[in-house]
Structures are given as structure tokens and as C-alpha cells.
């Protein structure tokens, strides 16, 4: 097998390691069933292998390192959905996939099936370093300076069964991007890394620590501006070591690194990390150019070639077909190669469940990836699918093929591109169901022309304060709350995860589900009425504040 485009190619040694991990987990399941492991002991062990006990069944979260998979791997997801689940899977905001109806005793079999295509569920949950996420347009975007996936793979390997950092105070999430336009929400991660080119041709890394959403949303702070590549692993070891030693373990709601960074202050945290670095044998932790290049050699690079008239063909199609033109406007992104384009397939059909895909859709996406994008697919942190390297003259054919399987919603970055957590339909922690309100909003704003008219507007929905739907970072955020046994939603405005990250502010009292949908419709109407030419929703909000929106939202309640 040739190396896959876009992700690391396993060899025999990687596969033996993975097989050993599955044998270990299989033994842990047996020990749980025979009683030699208590549930309290088994729980962290199963979580470290992605297995949750949800409201109705076990859920298995499978890692998609830096969000990139190949078509064979996608077909394996389809197989797992058919064979072990209810014929669908759910792509998550951390670029993973979840299977919601799993039997405990079948999990070792699922893991063995996944291992056939070099996939696993290692560290997709638990108090350890989680799956490393990255830019969904990595290696393709015109605005990128460094392809972050090689270093994302290095971080994946480094964090895998790390002997010191597998029992941290709490979960630990790392994201890495190589573009000046932050598409990974770097400042909402425990560690966010932005790569850029250094003077010697090797990358340097700007590192943020202590960001996160959840109960206590905090924007990450810069700890180092320019860490050289050879110091990357040493620096991360030092940051996590300070956290492991001093992070709170007495209260799980105060155990994330963000609380420690707030308590110490960023300067004191930096000093503590520097004190570690001074005691460390830096040579021992050095990430050499040879090590990086050896990892890079396991990635195949797509051989891009397009006919000279590829762009003209695309333009001609757009001119004659307004529906296609609308889709191209919202669902594509400029590629670094002039004859190519990045296509985003929306998993948010009007009235559908955000992020869900059936086995048939997964199989079809795998075929389309083979046909149009070197067999490569990426999962976005907004729960959509990217085909990264599509020839411009073939984009129209791709769009038609997507239409046939109901995957051509033209709503990326628009109001229909809703992010929602699983909510009370699945999750034991939730106060409210996130999915039905997402479906109602999706249906309300389903019309593609209306969505284009409204423009960039992101809705995020969380079913409880743990904020898995990232409501704090939504331009419009909805938080499910319980009011005397009834499901209510609190509205926040003005959050954003990209450059200039900020946390949304609460608009007013929480409303019941249907009233919330109506309030948002009025709020959007209000924006359309008062915006100035060329303004996005956030621009208008920044200019006028939330008073007009508050009046609109609550006018008839």
C-alpha cells in the first residue's frame, strides 16, 4: 500500500503497538466482567480507550488524528455503523467519530476492526492528553504558512501512553494550526499552538495555555511566542509537568489547567515552566530535524495537476447555475494551487441532526474522496467533511454527486451550520435536548438563499454548562437549563473562536424551546433590518451592542 495522502502511514511496529493496546483493553474488559476490576477502577481505564457509559448505552469515541482519514478508513466507519451500531455515526467538534449504541463485550471486536485500517480509540477520553486536533484545511489552504499535520502526528505519538501524563488532574486538549487565520480555536484549548516559518527554514511555535470552554470559559494566554522546533517536546513536557504536579485534584470542576493558570497568573506559570526547562536534560528531549523528517516521509503529498482552463470551466458553470454558485460561495475555500479548490461537505441538512452520517453516506463520501480528492477526507471542528484537493473543473460533477445523496446543503459558516452537543437524547449530564432545537432552527433557516442573505452567523448549542456544543464561542450561543423540570434555553451573543476570540454575553432570561426559536428568528430579522452595507452579524453587534437584539428577542414574551 502506498502512503496515504494527508496522514501518517503505519508500519509493522506501529501495528504491533496498537495490537498490544487492544489486547490490554480486552483483558481489562474481561477483568471488569469477572469482577477483579471494580467499576471505579475500570472507568478511567475504559475512558482512556474512548468508551463511555451514556444515558442508554455505551458510546465508543474513535480518534481521527488531526481530523484526517483516508477512504478505506471511512469505509470501516460505515462497516462499524452497520455491524455494531444503528447504521450511523456522529462526527464531533474534536474531529472524532462517536458510535452511540455499542455493547461493552463487542468493543474489543470493534477495536480489532478499526486496527485493520490503523485506527484506534486511544485517549479519546479520560484525564490524559486527548486526540490532537488541527486545521481542516491543512496542507491545502492558500493562507497557510506551515502544514501542521506532521507536528500534530508528532504530538499524537509523543502523547500516546505517555508514562507520566496518563493520570492528569483532568482531560487535556491540544490543537495546532499553521495558518495566520485560526481555524482550530487555539485559544480555547488547554494548549493551543500556532506554527509559522522560522529564520532557519524550520518552524517555530507560538504557544497559548489555559484556554477552554466548559463551566468556566477562559481565553488561553500566550506563554511563549517563538519556541524552536527542537524545543517543542521539551516545552510541552515542562508545561504538562507543572500542571500534573500542581493542578487541583480535589474538585473536578476546578481541575483543568485553565484554573491553575488563572490561580498562578500567566507570568508565574511561565516562570515555573522555565524552571523545569532549566533542570531538564534538553538534549534528551530534543526533537531533531531527522526525527521530524522521518515522520514527514510517512505522509504522501498529492500530485496536483489541473488543466489550464480549470478555473474558467468552474466560472462558466457558476454563471449558468445559480444554485451551484450559491454552494460554491459558502462551501469552498481557496486552495494553494490555482487549478484546485477545497470543498466542504455539510453534515447539516435542514432539519437534520448536526454531524450525523449514515453508513451509506460514509461509503459514498469515501467513493467521492477516491474520485475527486486523492482518497483523503478531513473532519472539521464544526462537524462537516472536507475534500481538500478538488480540481476546479471537476467541482460541478462533485456537487451533483453530493446532491444525489443529500449532502449538498449550501450552508458552511452560515446560520444552518449549527454545532450541537448530543444533549439529553444521549447524555446523562445534559439538562436539555440540544438536537430537537437544532433541527427546528435548521428547518426554520433551511432556505439556501435566505442563509446566504443572512451571511456569516454561527449558532452553537450546549445541553448543559459543560459546554460540549461550545455555546460560549457561538455568535449566537444557546445553553440548555433546567427550570423546574422544563427545558429552557439561555441565549448568549457575540462569542467567537477564531482570531480575536471572545466569550458570548448573556442576552436575557432563558426561554422554552419554541420561544427560543422564535426569539432567534426575530433577532435575525432585527439584524437584517439594521445592518449597514457589508456588515456581518458580529460587525453589527460590535457596532450597536446587544440592546436592539435584546428588544427584538424579548418583544412579545
Amino acid at each position, binding site marked *: 500500500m502506498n502512503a496515504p495522502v494527508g496522514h501518517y502511514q503505519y508500519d509493522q511496529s506501529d501495528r504491533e503497538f496498537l495490537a*498490544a493496546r487492544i489486547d*490490554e483493553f480486552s483483558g481489562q474488559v474481561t477483568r471488569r466482567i469477572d469482577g477483579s476490576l471494580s467499576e471505579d477502577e475500570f472507568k*478511567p481505564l475504559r475512558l482512556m480507550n474512548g468508551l463511555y457509559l451514556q444515558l442508554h448505552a455505551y458510546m465508543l469515541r474513535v480518534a481521527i488524528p488531526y481530523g484526517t482519514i483516508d477512504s478505506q478508513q471511512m469505509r470501516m466507519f460505515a462497516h462499524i455503523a452497520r455491524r455494531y451500531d444503528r447504521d450511523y455515526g456522529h462526527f464531533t467538534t474534536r474531529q472524532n467519530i462517536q458510535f452511540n449504541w455499542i455493547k461493552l463485550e463487542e468493543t474489543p471486536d470493534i477495536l480489532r476492526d478499526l486496527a485493520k485500517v490503523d485506527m484506534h480509540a486511544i485517549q479519546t477520553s479520560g484525564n490524559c492528553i486527548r486526540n490532537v486536533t488541527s486545521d481542516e484545511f491543512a496542507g491545502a489552504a492558500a493562507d497557510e504558512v506551515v502544514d501542521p499535520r506532521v507536528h500534530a502526528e508528532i504530538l499524537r505519538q*509523543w502523547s500516546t501512553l505517555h*508514562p*507520566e501524563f496518563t*493520570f492528569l488532574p483532568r482531560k487535556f486538549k491540544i490543537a495546532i494550526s499553521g495558518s495566520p487565520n485560526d481555524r482550530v480555536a487555539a485559544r480555547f484549548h488547554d494548549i493551543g499552538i500556532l506554527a509559522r516559518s522560522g529564520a532557519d527554514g524550520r518552524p517555530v511555535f507560538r504557544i497559548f495555555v489555559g484556554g477552554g470552554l466548559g463551566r468556566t470559559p477562559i481565553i488561553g494566554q500566550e506563554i511563549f511566542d517563538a519556541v524552536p522546533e527542537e524545543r517543542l517536546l521539551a516545552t510541552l513536557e515542562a508545561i504538562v509537568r507543572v500542571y500534573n504536579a500542581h493542578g487541583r*485534584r480535589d474538585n473536578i470542576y476546578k481541575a483543568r489547567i485553565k484554573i491553575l493558570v488563572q490561580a498562578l497568573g500567566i507570568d508565574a506559570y511561565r516562570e515555573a515552566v522555565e524552571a523545569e526547562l532549566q533542570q531538564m536534560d534538553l538534549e534528551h528531549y530534543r526533537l531533531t530535524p531527522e526525527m521530524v523528517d522521518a515522520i514527514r516521509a*510517512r505522509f504522501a503529498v498529492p500530485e496536483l495537476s489541473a488543466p489550464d482552463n480549470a478555473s474558467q470551466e468552474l466560472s462558466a458553470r457558476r454563471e449558468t447555475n445559480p444554485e451551484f454558485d450559491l454552494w460554491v460561495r459558502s462551501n469552498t475555500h481557496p486552495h494553494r494551487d490555482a487549478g484546485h479548490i477545497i470543498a466542504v461537505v455539510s453534515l447539516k441538512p435542514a432539519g437534520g441532526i448536526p454531524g450525523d452520517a449514515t453508513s451509506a453516506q460514509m461509503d459514498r463520501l469515501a467513493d467521492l474522496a477516491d474520485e475527486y480528492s486523492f482518497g483523503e477526507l478531513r473532519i472539521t471542528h464544526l462537524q462537516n467533511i472536507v475534500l481538500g484537493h478538488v480540481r476546479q473543473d471537476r467541482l460541478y460533477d462533485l456537487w451533483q454527486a453530493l446532491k444525489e445523496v443529500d449532502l449538498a446543503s449550501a450552508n458552511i459558516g452560515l446560520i444552518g451550520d449549527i454545532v450541537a452537543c448530543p444533549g439529553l437524547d444521549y447524555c446523562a449530564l445534559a439538562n436539555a435536548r440540544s438536537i430537537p432545537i437544532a433541527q427546528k432552527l435548521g428547518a426554520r433557516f433551511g432556505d439556501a438563499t435566505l442563509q446566504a442573505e443572512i451571511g456569516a452567523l454561527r449558532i452553537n448549542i450546549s445541553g448543559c454548562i459543560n459546554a460540549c456544543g461550545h455555546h460560549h464561542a457561538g455568535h449566537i450561543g444557546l445553553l440548555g437549563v433546567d427550570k423546574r423540570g422544563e427545558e429552557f434555553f439561555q441565549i448568549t451573543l457575540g462569542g467567537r473562536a477564531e482570531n480575536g476570540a471572545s466569550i458570548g454575553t448573556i442576552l436575557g432570561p432563558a426561554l422554552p424551546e419554541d420561544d427560543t426559536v422564535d426569539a432567534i428568528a426575530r433577532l435575525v430579522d432585527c439584524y437584517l433590518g439594521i445592518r449597514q452595507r457589508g456588515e456581518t452579524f458580529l460587525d453589527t453587534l460590535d457596532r450597536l451592542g446587544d440592546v436592539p437584539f435584546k428588544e427584538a428577542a424579548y418583544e412579545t414574551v
Partner: protein
Amino acid sequence: MKLFELNERPAKFHEALVTLSELAENTEARAVLLDIADDATALKPYLNRLELVVLRFPIFRDGRVFTQARELREYLRFSGEIRAEGHVLPDQAAFLKRCGVDNVVLPEGSDVELWEKQLHRFPVAYQRSVLPFRPVEGGLRIEEDS
């Protein structure tokens, strides 16, 4: 008390463990029980007379023990014996060894065979530890002396 040895170093029996605060006065003491909340670097003044440091897991999920062991080995270059005790699982055997722990006080009812199996489960590792290693061709992977 039953000890499980993670490496070749034979475990020694010690009659009396003292706490960190007792170390200063008790100049005869050769073995210390470090509290989970203490930094291992606090042992620095006593290193040349210490033969054993015992690290205690209050619960197996408390990963501070791993950092304490690494600080002893990497920062303080402690060459004496490090022992782990308390609520510890066989699934942690290799992690402990790789952080520099020599032996473990087995909890009641432990399955020694499982401890042995867990110790040698993984053929390679993806990050450096305190153990001597050989790089494996291609990237971060290493094999360690076991």
C-alpha cells in the same frame, strides 16, 4: 508486605520510614515516605544519605507519583531505590518503571502474573523516559532496556 520488582535492582528491606519533616532531625534515617503533595525536589538536602524513597498513591488516579519519581531521577539524579505503594493497578506497571520506580508494594490480592504481563506488554514506546533506550528506525519510537 509483598514487593513486585519492576527492574533488576533487588529491593532492600528497611525498618523505619520517616516523613520529610522528620528527615532533618533524624540524621540516622535512610528511608523516607514522601507525601503526595510534596515536591520531590524538597529531598535535595538529604540525597546523599537516602537509600529509599517511598511514593504513596492515595488512589490510583493520582498521577503526581509519576512526576515525583521523574523529578527524583531526572532533576536530582537520585540513584537510590524508589518504591511505590498504596492504591496502584497492574495497568500502571510500565508507566511506573519508565518514570524511575524500582518496585511496588503489591496491594492485597494482586495477580503477580498480570503485573508481569503488563510490565512487558508494549514492544516500543513513542517518547523518552528515564530508561536507557535504542531508537527504532523512523521518528520518535524507541525500544527500552527491560
